[in-house]
C-alpha cells in the first residue's frame, strides 16, 4: 500500500520536517500525517501552505511512503537520504544512514 505524507524544510534552520497528525511539524517521520487518496493529499498540502504563509516551513511537497504493515519508509532513495541523513556521519566517521 502507498501513502503520502508532506515533507518540507524548516525555515529557521533548514532541517527536514514532516507535517504531523496534530498539524505541527516534526523531524520524526513516525509522527507524519498520512494521506491515502488524492483528495487527502490535497488537504495536506493546503495545511502545509498555511505553514508556509506563517513562516514555519519552506517548499512543502508530498512524499510517497511504503506502508506494508511493517516498515514505514519513503519509496524513493532521495527521500530516504533526507530522512536518514548522509551515509557517513562525520562526527563518528561511521555509516549513519540506513539507505542501501
Amino acid at each position: 500500500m502507498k501513502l503520502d505524507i508532506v515533507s518540507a524544510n524548516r525555515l529557521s534552520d533548514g532541517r527536514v520536517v514532516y507535517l504531523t497528525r496534530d498539524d505541527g511539524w516534526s523531524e520524526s517521520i513516525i509522527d507524519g500525517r498520512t494521506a491515502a487518496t488524492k483528495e487527502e493529499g490535497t488537504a495536506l498540502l493546503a495545511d502545509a501552505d498555511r505553514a508556509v504563509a506563517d513562516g514555519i516551513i519552506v517548499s512543502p511537497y508530498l512524499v510517497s511512503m511504503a506502508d506494508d504493515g511493517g516498515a514505514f519508509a519513503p519509496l524513493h532513495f532521495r527521500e530516504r537520504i533526507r530522512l536518514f541523513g548522509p551515509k557517513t556521519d562525520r562526527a563518528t566517521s561511521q555509516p549513519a544512514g540506513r539507505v542501501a
Partner: protein
Amino acid sequence: MYRYDEFDHAFVHQRVAQFRDQVARRLTGELSEDEFKPLRLMNGLYLQLHAYMLRVAIPYGTLSSRQMRRLAHIARRYDKGFGHITTRQNIQYNWIQLTEVPDLLAELAEVEMHAIQTSGNCIRNVTADHFAGAAADEIEDPRVWCEIIRQWSTLHPEFSFLPRKFKIAVSGAVSDRAALRVHDIGLQLCHNDAGEIGFEVMVGGGQGRTPMLAKTIREFLPKAELLSYLESILRVYNQLGRRDNIYKARIKILVHEIGVETLAKMVEAEWHQVREGFTDLPQDEVARIERYFAPPPFDPAAGSDTGLDAARRGDSAFDRWLEQNVDAHKQPGYAIATISLKPEGGVPGDIDAEQMDAVADLAERFSFDELRATHQQNLVLPHVRKRDLYALWQGLKAHGLATANRGLIGDIIACPGMDYCSLATARSIPVAQAISTRFQDLARQKDIGDLRLNISGCINACGHHHVGHIGILGLEKKGVENYQITLGGRADGKAAIGAIIGPAFSADDIVGAVETVVDTYIDLRQTGEPFIDAYARLGREPFKERLYATH
C-alpha cells in the same frame, strides 16, 4: 597576501548589515521565500537537502592562518565541526541555520572573508593555479590579476544579472593546474615575440550537461588592457547570451552557436568602443596590489641546507610523501607541499575543525603564514623550507593529513552528491569512499601511477567528471542510482572531455568496473606509460570490451 582597504572593509560590513535585515524580514514574514531566495543566493546561502549550506569565498584559493582558524571556529560554532573544500577553491558548510547566518557572516568579515558572489548569475570567485607565487615553472604570479579581477567584478552593476553564472580562471605557469579550458574565461600569462608578458585569452569552456573546451580568441593581450577586454567579452555575452533557456545560457553555448571567429570579432569591435572611454587601471594601483603578493622573505642560504636526504633514508613513509606530495619551488631551498584531504575511505575535500587549526599552525610555522585551497579539493603550503619538510610531515601525520596520494587514484575529486545536494541525482561520496578503500594500498596506487578519478552526482558536473582520466557520473534510473563511466578526460594543458564508455553500472558494480578499467590499463600499458597516454594510444575499445564482457 592582499589585505582589504577601507572600501573592501566598508562594503563587506555593509553587506552583512543588509543581509541581517533581510533575514530578519524573512523570519517575520515580511519577505516571502520567492522574494528572499535571490537575496540569500547573492550571499552564498543555499537550501539543500538537510539544512542551509553556506559557500564561503576563498579568493583564488589563498588564505592566511588567521583566516583558516576562523574557518575552524565557524565549523565548530555554526556547523557540525567540519567544512568541505570545493572544486572552485571555496569552502562549504553543510549544516547552517538561517537564524545564525548574519552572525556567521559578521565573524567572517572580521577576517576579510565573505560569501558574496559564490552563487547567482554573476562573476564568481576567480580561481587560480594553487601553486601561484611558488611554482618553479611560473612566468608571473597570477594572483595580482586575480585580485584586480576580483575588485573589478565585485558588485559590478552591469554584470550582476548575467544570463548565467560566469567563471574565470588565471594561470601564470607553463603547466596548467587551473583547468583553464573548462572555464567561461581562461587567462594564461604568456610571452609575446617581443618578450613582453600578457595574456592568452580563452573563452567558452565549461562542464555541466554540455561540456566544451574554451577556445583562444586572442593569442596575446597586453596586461594593462585586461579589464577593458574582459569588460568587452562580458558585454557581448550579456547582450547575446540566452535568457530563455537556462541550459543554453552559458557563454560556451553562445560560442558554439555563433562560432569562435564571430565572437572574437564581436569582442574586438566592442573593445574598440570600450577602450575609448575606459580608464585602465593606473600603474600605481597595479604596483600597489603587486606589493601584496611580493615573495615572502626567503632565506637565500636555504639552498645550501642539508639533512633532507638523511630524513628520507630514515623514514620510508616520509620518503613516499615527499615523492608524491611535494613539488619544486622557484626559490632554491624551498618546496611546495600538498596536503591531501583524501584519506583512505574518507570524504574527498572534508576537513574538520581540529585539522583546520593544525594546518593553520603548520602554515604559520613553516609556510610564511600562507596556505591554499585547490580545485582538486586539497590544501597546499606553498613556501616550505626543505629542511623543515620532515617536521611538517610529522605535524601533518599527527592530524591524519599526511596521506601520500596526490595525483593518484585515491586523490579523488567528488562533489557532495545526494548526501547533501538538492540538485543531485545520485550519491557521489559513498562511491568515492568505496573506491578509496578498494585502492587503499599506496604501493598499488603508486604502481598505477598518475590517474585522476573524478565523480559527479549529477549532470551539473561539480565533481569535474568530464575531465577526469576516469570520470563517474551518478544518475537516477527508475528510482535507482546508476553510474556512468567516461574515459580520457583531462583538465591540464592538453584538456579533453572524456568519452562515455557504455551503459551505466549499478552502485554495487561501479567499484568493480573502475577496477576493471585500471586492470586493463595495467595489462596493456607500455613501460612508464601513464593511464591517460595509454588510453590515447589504445582508444576505448579494449576497456569497453573488458567492462562489458561479462554483462
